[in-house]
């Protein structure tokens, strides 16, 4: 039975008890190789069916997430929660499911190449590890994930949709002496050149970051790699969700659409229709046709991300980003600049290139204050030349300040997807002026 057929069956099982309902079924087949010191730590294979229901009852909003495809179990759970739901008050984020503009959507964008390597992905891993070794890397760890994904959606408003996609996610961290380098790739297709590029980049950065350098904490001009930008753009995308602004999780609650938030160089798009980034969708979880859109353009906030309910609270229309409760981005795309990547150090002149980060934590979401820690190559640049690696330093600033201080962006961009970048993000390198860098005084 297809994902849509299962979703339709689930919808039939619950539609009589609820005022409106949406039923989504996601089938996944996935193979993941976890690489440890250049070998497989474990190979994992999953085949799962997960079912999701969004149920409306006189303005009350109920969501079920069950790891099953059994209509009987879903109906039982829906019945049990109906008895609880009827005692609740209406929700301020409930809206009737939208009437579809297109009643049926079917898409098939799976890449046969991804499917072929799901049984045994070891040749792909070995190609990337060869690149690490060629660059001089001594060992490498990472993950290669190949996935076939089918999603079916049926709603009581009359929408039916089904799509099939493939996904490749790969990241590798290489080590050379005290140096390390990390790079990643997210793709809809089997991109063997991209896989080798991840190995090459990881090895290259590891070699580049072997030589230690010292610094005193203070304000620096920095270049952030697409890995770092990917992480920060993911956080910005979460804050761009209209619900985040309602719940105290976004500094954008202080801004209106049209306000200048970032520098004119900065534009961020949500691109569900992108053919390369693997987070895309033809329709959102309410059956609304997705569209590519600017969240920020030329530094101005152009839209928050909405589902039907958050949009109607603001007197507007869904942006095709449902999330039944929380609107969210599909794929992120930071527009490029016109500087060549290899010229970034020269333009920076004196400062620090941060190649990777993690553990970004907000001190205050409403102000956007955060800090994040570098983990692979914080490269000190003097007179346009990389002179050494500062190791693990902390970048501490606020998102509005950072966005308004973006001065240059590289022409080349990378498609990032890894542990700290869960929404696939295409990003350039970014040069940002006057950022606080700290580390403990020992």
């Amino acid at each position, binding site marked *: 039975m297809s994902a849509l057929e299962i979703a339709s069956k689930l919808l039939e099982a619950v539609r009589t008890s609820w005022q409106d309902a949406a039923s989504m079924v996601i089938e996944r087949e996935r193979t993941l190789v976890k690489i440890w010191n250049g070998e497989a730590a474990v*190979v994992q294979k999953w085949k799962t069916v997960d079912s999701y229901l969004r149920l409306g009852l006189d303005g009350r909003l109920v969501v*079920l997430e*069950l790891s099953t495809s059994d209509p009987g179990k879903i109906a039982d759970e829906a019945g049990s929660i109906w008895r609880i739901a009827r005692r609740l008050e209406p929700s301020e984020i409930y809206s009737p499911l939208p009437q579809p503009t297109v009643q049926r959507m079917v898409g098939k964008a799976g890449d046969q190449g991804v499917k072929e390597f799901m049984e045994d992905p070891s040749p792909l891993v070995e190609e990337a590890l060869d690149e690490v070794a060629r660059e001089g890397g001594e060992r490498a*760890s990472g993950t290669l994930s190949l996935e076939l994904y089918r999603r079916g959606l049926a709603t009581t408003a009359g929408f039916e949709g089904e799509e099939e996609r493939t996904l490749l996610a790969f990241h590798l961290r290489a080590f050379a002496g005290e140096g390390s380098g990390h790079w990643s790739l997210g793709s809809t297709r089997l991109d063997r050149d991209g896989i080798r590029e991840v190995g090459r980049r990881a090895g290259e950065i590891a070699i580049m970051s072997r030589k230690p350098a010292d610094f005193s904490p203070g304000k620096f001009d920095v270049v952030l790699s697409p890995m770092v930008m990917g992480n920060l753009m993911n956080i910005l995308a979460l804050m761009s969700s209209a619900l985040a602004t309602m719940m*105290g999780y976004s500094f954008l609650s202080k801004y209106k659409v049209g306000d200048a938030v970032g520098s004119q160089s900065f534009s961020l798009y949500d691109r569900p229709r992108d053919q390369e980034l693997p987070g895309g969708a033809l329709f959102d979880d309410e059956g609304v046709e997705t569209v590519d859109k600017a969240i920020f353009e030329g530094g101005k906030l152009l839209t928050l991300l909405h589902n039907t309910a958050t949009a109607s609270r603001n007197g507007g229309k869904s942006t095709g980003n449902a999330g039944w409760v929380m609107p969210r981005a599909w794929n992120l795309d930071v527009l490029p600049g016109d500087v060549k990547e290899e010229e970034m150090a020269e333009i920076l002149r004196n400062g620090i290139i941060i190649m990777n980060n993690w553990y970004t934590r907000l*001190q205050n979401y*409403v102000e956007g204050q955060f800090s994040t*820690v570098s983990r692979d190559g914080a490269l000190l640049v003097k007179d346009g030349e990389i002179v050494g690696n500062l190791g693990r330093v902390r970048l501490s600033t606020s998102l509005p300040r950072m966005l308004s201080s973006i001065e240059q962006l590289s022409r080349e961009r990378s498609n990032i997807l890894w542990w700290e970048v869960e929404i696939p993000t295409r990003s350039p390198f970014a040069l940002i002026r006057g950022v606080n860098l700290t580390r403990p005084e020992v």
Partner: protein
Amino acid sequence: MLGLIDEGSRRGAAYVEVRYQADSGKAIMMRNGRVLSLSSFGGEGVGIRILLDGGIGFSSTNSLNKSSLREALERALSAARVAGRLKRRKTGMSDERVGKASYEALQKRRIDDLSVDLLVERARDAEKNARDALKEARLSVFAFSLSSHVQEKLLLTSDGAKIQSRIPRLYASINFVLEDSGRTLQRWREFGGSGGAELLDEWKIEEEMREEASNLEVVMLRGISPPNEKLDLVLGQEIVGLAMHESSGHPMEADRILGREAAQAGESFVKPERIGEKIGSALATVIDDPTIPGSMGFYLYDDEGIPARAKHLYREGVIWEPLMNREMAFMVGRKSNGSARAMNYASEPLVRMSNTYLEPGTMSFEELIEDIYFGLYVKSYMEWNIDDIRWNQRYVGLESYIIRNGEINEPVRNPVIEITTGDFYGKLVGKDKNLKFFPGTCGKGEPHQGIPVWFGGPNVRLRNVSVRALGD
């Protein structure tokens, strides 16, 4: 399930582990006293882990008919073969005495008996208390969510483990924002434990919210800039607990020490040869103990069938015993100490913490601060992070005060403490007897696994620590 073990063994597997797990729960989300949504989550399935030809393979399915289970076994065998082929140095599982047991976490009052009306009422009371406690500031957001979760497992292994368990948990989180004249302050609090509906009473959320809102309003409106100098620092239990989790628990996970998590959660400043090395003062005794009744990280047998026990991660300042599962124990020629946990049926068991805490001292809080002429007390935090080897860490204080002449004095806004793990434990000169635990969800692995934990400790004193103000 036994048939799967027999079949896996017959096909050459050196180890077969079959785990059935069922999770079910409900959650309510509220904002400013109004219900936004009600949700129900869960699922059941079987995860199969195989050791074959020196490689480990894992597969899972949530279709529980015979043919799907057989298919999952085939996938696990095939995955193990691929893993074995990619490995030059073959892996294995330590030889252990595994358990046969059935247990459950005690509920004094059934979680299922918690009515939604009661939950809504309690959340509204908490919000009202916070709002009423404010004199000048505005409570612009009070977001409240509460979830119940029941986790049932049946674990069988080819070397004889048979463990059945049932653990109910209750968890609440609150995010509130205070505003006044363009200033804002944000507080995130969590409450959690294993057990039943009685937990909701034990947490006293309503009282905690009244006190937090009142104190934090004063910090926001009257807080002075922190001193920019080295001074004696008193850290509250909440920060101490977090520090134990981040700078003791994580670096003492054997899979990090050996590099298995290098590309995800990172490695560790602890290397195998550093075990036994002194890292802190004699007060630095940190324990991880899954057997604490009522705790978030409660279990009596781990997900490889090994009996749970308390482990001293650091003992009187010495790096002592890393957290181990059977694969890591095999690699270093030791025994597992029962630290393997999996998030759900679709997750491989990994080396995880449970309830990690600094052993309390014997002093009172007053004794801890009485001889501090000029210092800083940081009771709670908002932001924190730590590097990937768990050495360079940072905490930004939320509720903080100057200590002057042995007494808590004026409030302080946003003090920043950046300190190394070595300095944290090396400068530990005092701790009181007031042990308190806090809940959290610990992230690790790929695909990412969130595991319920507690972390805690007493109030502590650190000597001569640098404090700074928050930058821009």
